[in-house]
């Protein structure tokens, strides 16, 4: 195996070996969200005029799980390696910064997609969800998890303590995800908040992802994909520059 393939394999093994925590726990959280919100809201609201609330909620919850887990994978792997010192094992071999980036981000994408698929599977028996455009679903899940994987790398490289990663997650990733339309359509918001939502890149990830299921969205999916792709390119570019400089990794 090449160095890149080995690093990717190692990152996958890392979360697979503790799958109760890395897959089981987020699936349970998503299922609880679905049952509680579904129970309270079902029958009261219809989204896009025709979609029942629970069905609307499922893609939102799936994407939220995809994004949060992609972020958690790369950030926790890096910060743990830095704190325990075993980051040296990946710094000594002849891996380029590009390979380093690709391996961590791809592992984050896989973790995000695996957790997303598991959440989807668990909800299927309870909720009737359509899959109108599967390619859009995959495209948004891939790009969204790649963005969060790269952001997780930035957090993991920058942070020196685990609570700094937690702050990054709790004060940036969580609010941006919750305010992106996981639980609602932004058309139900007052005009000001609706406008503000358009500056949240996470909104485009979830809106485009949802389009794949219902064929309806707040914004045209092509526009959403363009925004998400541009965001991915920016975040990846910055992360690659940081890795190349050796910031906090090679002194």
């Amino acid at each position: 195996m090449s160095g890149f393939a080995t690093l990717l394999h190692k990152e996958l093994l890392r979360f697979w070996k503790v799958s109760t925590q890395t897959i089981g726990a987020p699936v349970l959280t998503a299922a609880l969200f679905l049952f509680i919100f579904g129970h309270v809201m079902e029958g009261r609201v219809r989204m896009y005029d025709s979609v029942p609330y629970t069905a609307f909620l499922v893609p939102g919850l799936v994407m939220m799980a995809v994004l949060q887990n992609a972020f958690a994978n790369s950030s926790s792997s890096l910060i743990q390696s830095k704190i325990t010192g075993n980051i040296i094992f990946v710094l000594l071999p002849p891996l380029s910064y590009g390979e380093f980036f690709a391996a961590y981000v791809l592992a984050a994408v896989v973790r995000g997609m695996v957790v997303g698929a598991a959440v989807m599977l668990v909800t299927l028996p309870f909720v009737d969800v359509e899959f109108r455009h599967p390619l859009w679903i995959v495209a948004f899940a891939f790009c969204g998890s790649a963005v969060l994987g790269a952001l997780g790398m930035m957090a993991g490289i920058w942070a020196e303590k685990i609570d700094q990663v937690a702050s990054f997650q709790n004060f940036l990733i969580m609010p941006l995800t919750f305010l992106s339309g996981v639980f609602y359509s932004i058309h139900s918001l007052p005009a000001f908040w609706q406008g503000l939502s358009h500056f949240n890149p996470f909104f485009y990830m979830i809106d485009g992802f949802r389009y794949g299921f219902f064929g309806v969205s707040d914004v045209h999916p092509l526009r959403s994909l363009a925004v998400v792709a541009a965001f991915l390119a920016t975040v990846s570019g910055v992360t690659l520059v940081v890795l190349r400089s050796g910031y906090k990794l090679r002194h």
Partner: protein
Amino acid sequence: MPAAIEIRDVHKRFGDLHALSGIDLEVPCGEFFGLLGPNGAGKTTLISVLAGLVRADRGSARVMGHDVRSDYRAARRSLGVVPQELVFDPFFTVRETLSIQSGYFGMRDNLAWIDEVMQHLDLASKADVNMRALSGGMKRRVLVAQALVHKPPVIILDEPTAGVDVELRQALWRFIRRLNRDGHTVVLTTHYLEEAEALCGRIAMLKQGRVVALDSTSNLLKRVHHLLLRLRLAGELPAELRALEHGSTEDAHVLRLKTYDDVEPALSCIRRAGSRIEEMELLQPDLEDAFVDVMRRS
């Protein structure tokens, strides 16, 4: 053939601290080389520059002729580093750890060598044990194995025997000596100077980021122009000999003499003072004396 290690005018600052102040060093292929110095002398920083973990502010470093920055892939492939800290990845077993490390270097079908390394380091029985469950000594062996898994021509060991029991230390040195005999270049830092004296053909001593001595081990020992006379006396040491005292212990006096000619006058001085010699030993200077000497003078 290029030198195994070539360091030219390497400088490194960490804030106000000048960790390396113009290091020049060349280690030819096949040598067993020692890097000695007190804590904070810059040994680990120098190793880190070679390994690409620290980037020098100025100067260049090459491993087997490959620049550690511009030709980092070839340089890192040529180098195996055993780090000082006892680090491990708690997710994996010993065999997984070694096979992953080997994969990072792009080695295919490396299982036979991995088994051989484990055999030599007495790790075979622990192959499928999780790293977390190993003792400190065992973890140290795995670190050595990890550094060797890609068969590097140059091996750097940063204090590999710190906190290791005698048995492992000896097993480790047998193995490293064999690697050196097989043509590997070995660079060692250690605080156990008798270890460096027994193993290293040539030694560099570092102090405050500079090389203050660089010579063969035998020449370094010859530089020490004194010998030590260890005496156990029934009675007091005469006052005129007190000035010669050098590291005396509770039950014995150690005198530092310039030549063998000084032995007789010292003994007659003791006799005149009425003390009796119960035990006497002439000690040859060792690397520790050379080290103390160099550090004091530089």
